[in-house]
């Protein structure tokens, strides 16, 4: 009996000592307390596409979303806007009259998350990384201006600690240039920290894959591949007001049914890829808001003008444009998650053309075909990828719709569903006949659409479809070099008209991004490039 008592006595003493010790440890440090539910934002989304969180190399939807929160840029776009760049790390900037030299003046006293001061050398180093990292899918954003690993040291310089000068080698649209300065590829990294983690001359890439060294509102806490990306607020953030949300979790939830389940159980604040039906279901409960925003992209049917001789005739291309039931696609297949777009520059971007002359008119389409000498119709192979298309329709459903629409005017479509990698190999080799595909903005400037769709010499979409219109190429180049203004707007209007009347691209729709947001989550701004601005969000 006595031994038992002694045992319990000793146990009690040890326990109280432990309790006391733990209380002493956790007592005063309220500032480092883990973020509570009101300070945590959980986004149910797919992060399966993320390859790296190194800002200079990030080039997928989810890695762009996260790196945008981790790194500051010279300029940025605020609160979902995509047309007006605003200062972020640079307080002001100038372009030389010939448009070839840009000078950025950094805000003074800026700090990285590490506490290191931000200098112009960090900006220069970030550009060097972007063009020197091997296998970098995002490097072309900079190399297209003629700045490469060979000349970056001369072209991007720091005359003093607060000034960065960028000299372009090839003339480049000013709007597009500033848009790229806001993209994570040019996100400014903390040179000192990165250099501490270099192994085998890798520019610190192996470490930067899953660590952060920036000045954005958040720092990377952890990235569990195929599970979650966790960001914590940056204690040294000085590019804006301290965010109300102290922890952001991108929860890997690729299946929309699982996203729905999370939202219903309160396990997520925002769901990114619910179907129209699931959105209605949530909206019906009254506990969620639905945000819809046009994506800066378009879904198109590309017609090869060489591999299918009929498509070389502009009348046949027009006939196809008159044969499609656009309204049916948007209302029924997309349940409204798309908007009609017939030019090549999407809504939300400078130069957007709201002109939509085409609607399904079978009689007109047939007579155009007859005029062109193809009244008895012809047969084509159409490639489509085995994926869902933006806006929430499967490519196979949309292909079936196009097949039935075109059958009405005598064009027989053999739909070939392929893996995306296989499809693009054929398309890039200029060997397709017709392709159902998507083009999305790399950066929010019309040049990013006009060039691929209109300029054959850039070896992009027009080239892949063997469509060469030298006059149009010239217009595209002229428009690209101009700053936003009447002259540029006029040129894009002209380019849009050529594409609508004559181009080999049948623009089918512009997808809407749809988000379900829990009612207590407010100030959710969606940028079409990096999506949710976590630093603006508040929770009631």
């Amino acid at each position, binding site marked *: 009996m006595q031994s038992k008592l002694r045992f319990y006595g000793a146990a009690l003493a040890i326990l109280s000592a432990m309790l006391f010790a733990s209380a002493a440890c956790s007592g005063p440090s309220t500032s480092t307390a883990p973020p509570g539910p009101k300070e945590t934002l959980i986004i149910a989304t797919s992060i399966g596409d993320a390859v790296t969180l190194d800002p200079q190399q990030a080039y997928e939807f989810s890695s762009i979303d996260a790196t945008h929160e981790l790194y500051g840029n010279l300029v940025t776009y605020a609160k979902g806007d995509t047309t007006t760049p605003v200062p972020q790390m640079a307080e002001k900037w100038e372009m030389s009259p010939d448009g070839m030299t840009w000078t950025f003046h950094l805000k003074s006293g800026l700090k990285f998350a590490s506490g290191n001061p931000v200098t112009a050398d960090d900006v220069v180093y970030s550009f060097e990384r972007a063009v020197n990292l091997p*296998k970098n*899918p995002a490097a072309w954003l900079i190399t297209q201006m003629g700045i490469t690993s060979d000349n970056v040291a001369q072209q991007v310089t720091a005359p003093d600690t607060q000034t960065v000068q960028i000299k372009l080698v090839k003339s480049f649209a000013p709007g597009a240039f500033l848009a790229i300065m806001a993209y994570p590829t040019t996100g400014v990294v903390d040179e000192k920290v990165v250099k501490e983690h270099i192994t085998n001359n890798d520019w610190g890439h192996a470490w930067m894959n899953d660590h952060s060294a920036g000045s954005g509102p958040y720092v990377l806490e952890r990235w569990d591949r195929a599970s979650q990306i966790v960001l914590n607020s940056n204690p040294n953030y000085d590019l804006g007001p301290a965010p109300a949300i102290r922890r952001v979790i991108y929860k890997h*939830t690729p299946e929309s049914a699982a996203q729905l389940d999370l939202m219903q159980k309160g396990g997520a604040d925002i769901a990114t890829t619910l179907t129209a039906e699931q959105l209605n279901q949530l909206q019906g409960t009254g506990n969620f808001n639905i945000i819809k925003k046009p994506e800066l992209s378009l879904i198109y049917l590309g017609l090869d003008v060489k591999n299918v001789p009929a498509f070389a005739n502009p009348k046949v291309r027009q006939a196809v444009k008159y044969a499609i039931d656009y309204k049916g696609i948007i209302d029924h297949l997309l349940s409204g998650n798309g908007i009609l777009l017939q030019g090549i520059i999407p809504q939300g971007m400078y130069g957007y053309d709201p002109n939509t002359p085409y609607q399904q008119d079978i009689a007109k389409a047939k007579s155009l075909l007859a005029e062109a000498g193809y009244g008895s119709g012809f047969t084509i192979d159409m490639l489509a990828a085995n994926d869902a298309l933006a806006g929430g329709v499967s490519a196979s459903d949309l292909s079936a719709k196009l097949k039935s629409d075109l059958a009405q005017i005598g064009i027989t479509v053999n739909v070939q569903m392929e893996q995306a*990698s296989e499809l693009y190999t054929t398309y890039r080799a200029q060997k397709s006949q017709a392709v159902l595909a998507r083009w999305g903005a790399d950066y929010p400037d019309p040049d990013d659409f006009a060039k691929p769709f209109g300029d054959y010499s850039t070896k992009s979409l027009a080239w892949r479809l063997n469509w060469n219109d030298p006059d149009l190429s010239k217009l595209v180049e002229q428009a690209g070099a101009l700053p936003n203004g009447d002259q540029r707007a006029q040129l894009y209007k002209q380019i849009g008209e050529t594409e609508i009347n004559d181009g080999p691209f049948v623009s089918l729709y512009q997808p809407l991004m749809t988000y379900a947001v829990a009612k207590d989550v407010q100030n959710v701004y969606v940028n079409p490039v990096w999506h949710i601005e976590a630093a603006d969000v508040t929770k009631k």
Partner: protein
Amino acid sequence: MGLLAYGIRRVILMVAVLFGVTLITFFISHVVPADPAAAYLGPQAPQSEVEHLRQELGLDKPLPEQYVIYLGGLLHGDLGVSIHDDRPVAEDLATYLPATIELASAAMLVAIFIGIPTGVLAAVYKDGLPDQIGRVFALTGVSLPVFYLALVLLWLFYATLGWLPGPGELSPYVEPPTNITGMLVVDALLEGNVPAFVDGLQHLALPSLTLGLYTTGIIMRMTRSSLLEVLWRDYIRTARAKGLTERVVLISHALRNAMIPTVTVIGLAYGSLLSGAVLTETIFAWPGIGRYATDSVVTLDIPAIMGVTLLAAVTYSLANLAVDIAYGYLDPRIRYT
């Protein structure tokens, strides 16, 4: 021949098999009509960048030369760098393998703990009710396709009854444990993270049942038939004649001898569970080797595809070897020749 010489011979054989596997996989994955460089850079990258990357990856070289380069790396223990996620393939495999080992081991436990007892019951009560039930169960387990079974289980236990969680390894609102072994449930246990342990086990239930049911069926049938075979042998009759209890006769005399074919099945099945969890992992969003394999195939990540295939081949070979060695333990009359 002793165990050592036997082991050496088997290892040499294994190397030959692995060489064959690399050869076949390499050439098959390169005749696919798609370009890994273009797949990596995505649909929008300029043509010049694709050409540039093809050179960087050595894809512009003749195929035999590419193979020699790959093999050279392999002999130095270098599995190459994944095109898709830009990390060494060996590192990727190490990241994704633990989740698969966890799943396959749980599935194996399910299979053993259901399969052997039901097999024994079925043999003892041959043609009786337990046998009938067991046979229907085994037939179902063996013949139901994994993807169908997975969906039925999800529908029943997750969507309808709500007893178990859906796809994934852990609920989003549960704090995951620190990565120690990479096996979530084990890590949670090591760390004393009770919520993660409980939640992890719940997440493990459906995929391991799905993956284990096929093996359960096989183990059950194998146990039953081999037990039936020995139960009529003379030495069993002798044991019974000595007056041993039926329990001792069954467990110590009959079962031990009847286990040899079952052990073979268990060993080989474990190998196939490790490499064959592709469908189960895809449906249950399980972050293991199966998912990695699927992603690699979809993105044409050739070094990763090679790595996964090699891993599967090594696993099979090792499982085979382990089975052969276990034979000798269970039946000392077996000699390694």
